[in-house]
């Protein structure tokens, strides 16, 4: 089942093209890693998939009963104000807003869903804590729980481990792997961590390098660009 198709996509801002000729599909159950250097257009691609920006040309189609606003989005960690008053529960509940339309208030089902997803992230005990007083790793889990409230199918993760220490980084990757394998959630992840991409992903999209590469991980390891970069990533090309 195809969830997302990008056709001849060109992206950029203020008229300047950053990436062109993007073609790829994401099927249910895939774990796609988008790699590329800084400035290669990874974040622009994410924003375009989320309809925060419109593409210069080409189109993005969603399928398999997925609506564009039902993608669970984990933004790149931005520094929120230190004194922002927001409880963990309030943050996670806001993930359910995409299904509420004009309904103004959260109901029991929304609250249960938020609790379930907090439990999935092992942070149900934090539900009444203040978000801005949590550690970086805890905040990331809260935002992942919020993203899970917004989707049953597809998660879009923008640099999910940036700013986390090595131990938390591994925990985060494990958590994402569990969501993919056990809960059947399709993952699209942006990363410049090649070794992690090669370890966890089923598919790779490499942008910012011509020709663009899109395919399975095994094909990537055998491709020219894959060979070049997997050495940088420290993964032996066996």
């Amino acid at each position: 089942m195809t969830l997302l198709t990008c056709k001849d996509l060109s992206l950029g801002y203020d008229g300047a093209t950053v990436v062109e000729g993007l073609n790829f599909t994401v099927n249910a159950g895939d774990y796609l890693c988008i790699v590329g250097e800084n400035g290669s257009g990874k974040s622009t691609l994410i924003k375009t998939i989320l309809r925060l920006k419109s593409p210069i040309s080409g189109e993005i189609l969603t399928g398999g009963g997925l609506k564009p606003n039902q993608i669970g989005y984990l933004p790149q960690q931005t520094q929120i104000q230190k004194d922002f008053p927001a409880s963990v529960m309030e943050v996670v509940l806001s993930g359910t807003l995409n299904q509420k339309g004009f309904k103004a208030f959260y109901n029991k089902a929304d609250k249960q869903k938020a609790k379930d997803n907090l439990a999935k992230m092992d942070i149900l005990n934090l539900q009444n804590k203040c978000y801005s007083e949590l550690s970086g790793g805890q905040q990331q889990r809260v935002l992942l729980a919020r993203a899970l409230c917004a989707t049953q199918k597809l998660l879009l993760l923008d640099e999910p481990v940036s700013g986390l220490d090595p131990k938390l980084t591994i925990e985060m990757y494990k958590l994402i792997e569990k969501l993919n394998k056990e809960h059947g959630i399709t993952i699209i992840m942006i990363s410049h961590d090649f070794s992690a991409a090669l370890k966890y992903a089923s598919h790779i999209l490499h942008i910012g390098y011509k020709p663009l590469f899109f395919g399975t991980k095994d094909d990537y390891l055998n491709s020219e660009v894959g060979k070049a970069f997997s050495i940088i990533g420290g993964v032996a090309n066996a």
Partner: protein
Amino acid sequence: MLEFNNIFEKLSLYFQYPFVRYALIVGVLIALCASLLGVSLVLKRFSFIGDGLSHVAFGAVAIASVLKLSNNMYLAIPITVLCAIAILSSSQNAKIKGDAAIAVISVGALATGYLVLNIFAASANISGDVCTTLFGSTSILTLKPSDVWLSIVLSIIVLTLFILFYNKIFAITFDEDFAVASGIRVKAYNLLIAVVTAIIIVLAINLVGSLLISALIVFPALSAMRVFKSFKSATICSAIISVVAAALGIIISILAGTPVGSTIVVVNIVNFALFYLVGALKGVKA
């Protein structure tokens, strides 16, 4: 004890006058509306929009009084709302950056307003008129029943909008990108917030005058945020603080004969200091 009885007697005497009751009703309603939006405005870094719009409202009121309209608000509300829309869309298009746009519009309106008042002087006491509009000194005590009703109706609209869109306002304030990705029409809600802010500011001119309005928006929110750590508790606390400060300020100003607007603001400042202290003590304990 005798002193206390005296105060009580004096108050009950004053409350027999309808204009005192009007002042209290309108003051409390305006303070309530301003404080509700305050939390969101402060967190979105929009505090200065409130300040800029209050100067626009001054200019609009000046023009309205020269035109001798039956009610200054009929002109001031549309002009201020239009400027709110202009300021907001300018920060998105970024030809003139947001803060510069606010400075241009607010100073321009202030100067134009004063100039218009001087050239087409409607009364002999120009500086008195200007002072009243800037600091709201006596105008809260000269409210007509039509002003009171207008304030009540607009306050109910603001409160209803705020409650209906409360969850979306939180989402937009906390994380705009995520809100857009969720299909929330962030631009429309930002516009709504700016328009409602403009309406509250025009209403608040009667209470504290245009120079002191930002205090009503910013202080209760900042005080509440010192102590309360969830959006809901901070918003409710901000509303309570603001209502109490407005009521207290009005009563003190009646008893002590001080200007209403600045008394309310000073009560808010004292209150902020208290909450700051409580917040700091809580932080030490934790």
